[in-house]
């Protein structure tokens, strides 16, 4: 079990992606695949799950300043700052199909970016529909564009489609040529994407988020129905999600109580 011991690593680079998100680069053991995640120990604060946005050393994670710990990290972390990482954990996106569409919302892009690149590397054409609240929050665009066409949406209309990325995705799906969809973002968004893809019979993979403690499939904190987001997921197929009672509706709070999503 030694392979997934906590590794304390110095940050080699901190890149500001937008007003409330940064990418942190570091070198660690392990060979994450697209969509997998690590547990990020922010010393004295918390340990939280983060997707790998860069897979090879220096690996990277792209973190939105969301609550206490992520904000403290953003405030304190500069080159040389040390964090703990353990992983890679969870399953990975299946890189398959003949024409793929990635649908990302906000920092959800951090989870799909490596997959988008992997599709491109596997010579499977991939397009990305990417939405955010405002133009500034449209991160990692350079890498997305190298991999394939990018369709943007912003809530405030500062870039791309003025409105929801789900509308953009629906239109693209209606084109009928995609045979693989992947998605990561707010659960309401993913629910729409999954429903749309399922409705058209297109295979869809969604990367889910749940409150995580162990990250390794033992504590039951991250349960979705009777599956573990940390160990059976974080990526689930649309078929399974169609049967889920929890997806889009329920989550567990930190005490394990089932509460409205």
């Amino acid at each position: 079990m030694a392979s997934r011991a906590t590794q304390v690593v110095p940050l080699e680079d901190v890149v500001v992606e937008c007003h409330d998100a940064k990418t942190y680069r570091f070198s660690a053991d392990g060979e994450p695949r697209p969509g997998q995640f690590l547990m990020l120990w922010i010393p004295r604060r918390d340990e939280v799950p983060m997707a790998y946005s860069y897979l090879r050393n220096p690996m990277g994670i792209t973190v939105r300043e969301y609550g206490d710990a992520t904000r403290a990290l953003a405030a304190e972390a500069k080159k040389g700052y040390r964090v703990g990482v353990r992983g890679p954990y969870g399953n990975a996106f299946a890189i398959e199909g003949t024409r793929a569409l990635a649908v990302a919302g906000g920092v959800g892009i951090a989870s799909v970016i490596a997959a988008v690149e992997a599709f491109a590397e596997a010579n499977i054409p991939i397009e990305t529909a990417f939405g955010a609240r405002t133009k500034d929050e449209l991160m990692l665009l350079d890498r997305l564009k190298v991999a394939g066409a990018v369709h943007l949406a912003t809530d405030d209309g500062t870039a791309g489609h003025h409105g929801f990325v789900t509308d953009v995705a629906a239109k693209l799906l209606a084109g009928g040529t995609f045979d693989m969809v992947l998605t990561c973002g707010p659960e309401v968004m993913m629910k729409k994407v999954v429903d749309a893809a399922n409705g058209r019979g297109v295979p869809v993979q969604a990367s889910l988020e749940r409150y995580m403690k162990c990250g390794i499939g033992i504590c039951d904190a991250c349960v979705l129905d009777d599956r573990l987001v940390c160990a059976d997921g974080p990526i689930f197929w649309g078929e399974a999600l169609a049967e889920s009672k929890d997806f889009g509706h329920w989550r567990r709070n930190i005490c394990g109580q089932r509460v409205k999503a």
Partner: protein
Amino acid sequence: MADLRAEVAGVKLRNPTLLASGFLDETGGSMLRVFNAGAGGVVTKSVGPEPREGNLNPTVVELPVGLLNAVGLPNPGIADYEAEAKVAVSGGAAVIGSVYGRDAQEYAAVAKRMASYDVLAVELNLSCPHAKGLGTEIAQDPEAVEEITRAVKKVVHVPVWSKLSPNVADIASFADAAKRGGADAVTAINTVKSMAISADLKMPVLKNGYGGLSGPAIKPVGLRCVYEIFEAVDIPIVGVGGIETGADAIEYLMAGARAVQIGTALLRRGLDVFPRACAEMSTWMDANGYAKVGDLVGAAHGK
């Protein structure tokens, strides 16, 4: 073919490998899944009177020799837990309900409610080493163990298993205290109080500082505790600590356990740990002429 059925103080189990408390048992769906994967039964997460968040992360550290944790008893509280227990019980799982409390009354109240959820037995977590003020003292005070066990026995109709801590000078005296309190069985052992330190960060890795060690590192400790209790006290024992294979389980049975619990080994073997351990037991028993689980119990004590 060896008969793997086991019995602990009247609780009949289809095989002697139970899910240990704290692993995939905060929710009914997970418990049922573990049972359906082949566990002989499942012990619930330790549930208390109120919902509880537990400790802040990091709560878990993977070490080369085992797992260190200080989850700190997160649980949805006994009221919300009814729905979870129901999913598992109505799905057909053999469920043992684990509970904790601050004092004997609280233990009794929670245990009573837990028993009403149709669990086969109640396990008293008298031993969690890291929840401050919620067990540390109890775990190390035989009188508290006796008193709590007695209070619970008064109000529940199902068998009561008192789960003991190894972080004491003489675990057998605690088994004896549980017996005096009326326990139908004892479970041994909970985790061993431990720590991991990050030199790079100059601090303990667990947010809580201290934690409990489980997995391979504590198997020799658990075996010793079960053996000691078996020698000293006439009470059924459920063995737990570092069990992964059928061989591990057989060693615990020979030390004196009537059934075993498995937790940390889920990390290495996944849910298959239960059917695999059972298959390994069965193969070994057939090869060595043991017809049933009971024949193994305490066998290492024969002189």
